């Protein structure tokens, strides 16, 4: 029998024969590894996931027309959007404002893309429903009070195409009947407008006009956003990109805090867990002083004893690490689904890291008690002193 074969046989035999003790050790390592891989995955994923939650604050970038530098319409917007990574765009809401008359009162109407507005401003609270069909409108709360209108009412919008002057004694107007399907509550200036779809607005005002502003909700860090505003303003004719400071600045403040919270928690939990793993391993090894004494008495060299124990520890560390990496990912996934209702990406790099850290911790935990056991006289150890 070769030396190597004997080495492996001793390791596997000791693992199998001392099943319960080894299970205890394996469990300890697996728990440690689970915490390591689970928490690190969460730590790396928190900014992305939390960033999505922060998009509740609404648009963090706006596009404005760059006067005298080309048209500002849907093509301009598409051009600008092509410069932003598609998976970072949460919502795009173009707005075009016009003054119309409803019940002879001047009212500001905004044409927008309803689905885009819903995505870009998730905080809009609608009493009723979002407009889905043609000729439906959303009424801002304040306008609703002025007009004393509400859900289900029908309103007629009158748009003045051209004012009356000397040539045309009668002003040209166009009219359209709209059904109120919802009343918008935001607590902000949005309540002062009436919202209709862009197509309806274009029908009312006839020639397709330019946009006034486009609100973008982008899930990206502040520096990325700054980069986007720069490239859009430089490369897209007719559009000027600006950050909504209130949102971006506050978001980066709060997000930095949250991330450092998770980081610190991760560090403390990891440090404590690793010490826990190490003490358990130490306890398991200390128990085997007798065995070490016996082997020494039989003439085994210190080095071979240390190697054997290390081999055992490393095997345990490896298996426990693998197990923990899998369980940790499952935990991170569960957290992500429960907290952020989205799945988490598997980080391949974390697998070797978890296994290596587990092996290192178990190795370190084993080596100290084995060392001290080999240093004493075998006779004393065997006698049980």
């Amino acid at each position: 029998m070769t030396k190597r074969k004997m080495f492996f046989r001793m390791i596997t035999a000791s693992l199998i024969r001392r099943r319960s003790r080894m299970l205890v050790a394996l469990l300890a390592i697996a728990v440690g590894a689970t915490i390591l891989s689970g928490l690190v995955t969460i730590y790396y994923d928190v900014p992305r996931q939390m960033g999505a939650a922060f998009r509740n604050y609404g648009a963090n970038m706006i596009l404005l027309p760059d006067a005298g530098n080309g048209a500002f319409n849907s093509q301009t917007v598409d051009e600008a959007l092509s410069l932003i990574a598609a998976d970072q765009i949460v919502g795009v809401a173009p707005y075009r404002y016009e003054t119309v008359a409803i019940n002879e009162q001047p009212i500001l109407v905004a044409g927008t893309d309803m689905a885009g507005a819903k995505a870009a401003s998730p905080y809009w609270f609608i009493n009723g429903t979002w407009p889905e069909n043609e000729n439906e409108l959303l009424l801002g709360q304040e306008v609703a009070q002025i007009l004393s209108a509400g859900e289900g009412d029908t309103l007629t919008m009158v748009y003045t195409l051209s004012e009356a002057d000397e040539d045309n004694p009668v002003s040209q107007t166009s009219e359209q009947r709209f059904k109120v399907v919802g009343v918008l509550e935001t607590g902000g200036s949005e309540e002062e407008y009436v919202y209709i779809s862009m197509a309806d607005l274009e029908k009312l005002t006839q020639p397709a006009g330019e946009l006034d502003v486009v609100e973008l909700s982008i899930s990206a860090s502040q520096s990325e956003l700054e980069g986007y505003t720069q490239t859009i303003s430089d490369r897209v004719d007719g559009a000027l990109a600006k950050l909504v400071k209130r949102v971006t600045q506050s978001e980066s403040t709060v997000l930095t805090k949250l991330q450092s919270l998770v980081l610190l928690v991760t560090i403390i939990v990891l440090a404590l867990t690793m010490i826990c793993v190490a003490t358990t391993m130490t306890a398991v090894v200390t128990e085997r002083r007798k065995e070490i004494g016996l082997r020494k008495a039989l003439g085994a060299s210190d080095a071979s004893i240390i190697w054997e124990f290390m081999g055992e520890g490393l095997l345990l560390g490896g298996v426990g690490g693998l197990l923990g990496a899998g369980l940790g990912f499952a935990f991170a996934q569960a957290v992500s689904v429960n907290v952020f209702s989205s799945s988490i990406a598997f980080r391949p790099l974390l697998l070797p890291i978890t296994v290596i850290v587990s092996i290192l911790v178990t190795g370190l935990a084993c080596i100290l008690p084995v060392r001290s056991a080999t240093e004493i006289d075998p006779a004393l150890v065997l006698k049980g002193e």
Partner: protein
Amino acid sequence: MFFRMIRGALTRQRGKMLMIALTIALGASLATAMLNVMLDVGDKVNQELKTYGANITVVPKAASVLNNLYEVEGGETTEGAYLREDELGNIKTIFWAFNIVDFSPFIDTEVSLPGGGTATMVGTWFNHYLSLPTGETLYTGVQNLRTWWDIEEGQWLDEVADGADTCMVGAALAKANGIHAGDVIRVNGRYADANLRVVGVYDSGDDADEQIYAPMEIVQELSNTDGYLTSIEVSAITTPDNELAIKAAKDPKSLSVSQYETWYCTAYVSSICYQIQEVITDSVASPVRKVADSEGAILEKTELLMVLITILALVGSGLGISNLVTASVMERSNEIGLLKAIGAPDRSITAVVLTEIVLTGIAGAVVGYFVGFGFAQIIGHSVFGSSIEMKAMVIPLVGVLVVVVTLLGSIPAVRTLLRLDPTVVLHGR
């Protein structure tokens, strides 16, 4: 005899028992730190979220309609069109006064500038010193409510040091009119003129870039609205809305008496709004949904995240402790075999072993609690810059956890050992 055995075991096996105590202390400190942080994280994050500014605005019942749609300007101080300045302090007397972090009044008017253009001038508090009827004093104003402003030139206006004839100018307006910090500009209001020294130029990234912010008295003088306000912004710490809060927000009268009590005595944004309306005459207080809703969502997510991480840490430390306890009990097979061989009944063997382990565990847990509290403070100070509150409920939680976990770890091991034949055990197989 029982006590002597335990004392003997604890002193003679000092090294081993110390190791168990150390592991339990580690586990307990982990549990303490995580539980304390988890229970306090809501308050802490809520404070951080205040950087988004006010989450409640208070306007007079009829104001916005008059101003924005009929372009009626200040001057005619009709009832219901303005809020009263002398009622401002009342905001800090409501049931949830303690939750109101900052608030600031606003009054705005149109002014014309020497260059010929016009601008909106907003009168407000910057860092106003307020002494309340309750004896409390605080500094409040836009300096706390506009944390995202970048000061491009000069500095924040200081109400006391700079005096009344001062202002801050938005970056866009300053650029268009060539105004710099330190300049003195002449503004013409509808009822009076004033020479104001520009203390700072700010970049806000919104409409305020086109406006002038000045101390309240000077704007009231320019628009002849002494003692009146157009709006109040309030920043309050709130509890995320639930079904009750949504129902109450629509109509508080639809609630039953007990529901009403619960709602009124919970810091929902709607109940704080309702209480503000009670103390400010002819006012409408409404949540700024953008801020209030997002705060709720972010708070909920952070809390849930911390709860799950805490559960993981608790399970981890629990398994760690019970593991070590199992290992250390198994190790004592010889001793247990010997006790059995000299005729000790199973029950007393179990009692001796368990008492030893639980005593060690409690000692470890006490040390662990204080260490863990230290860890919680480290987290609190380095992340939020304030200490984590000591929650009393953590003590019994950690105690129960440690006792349950040590018992769970030792009972199965003791039972396995008791089932073994003493001769086999003593023989060392």
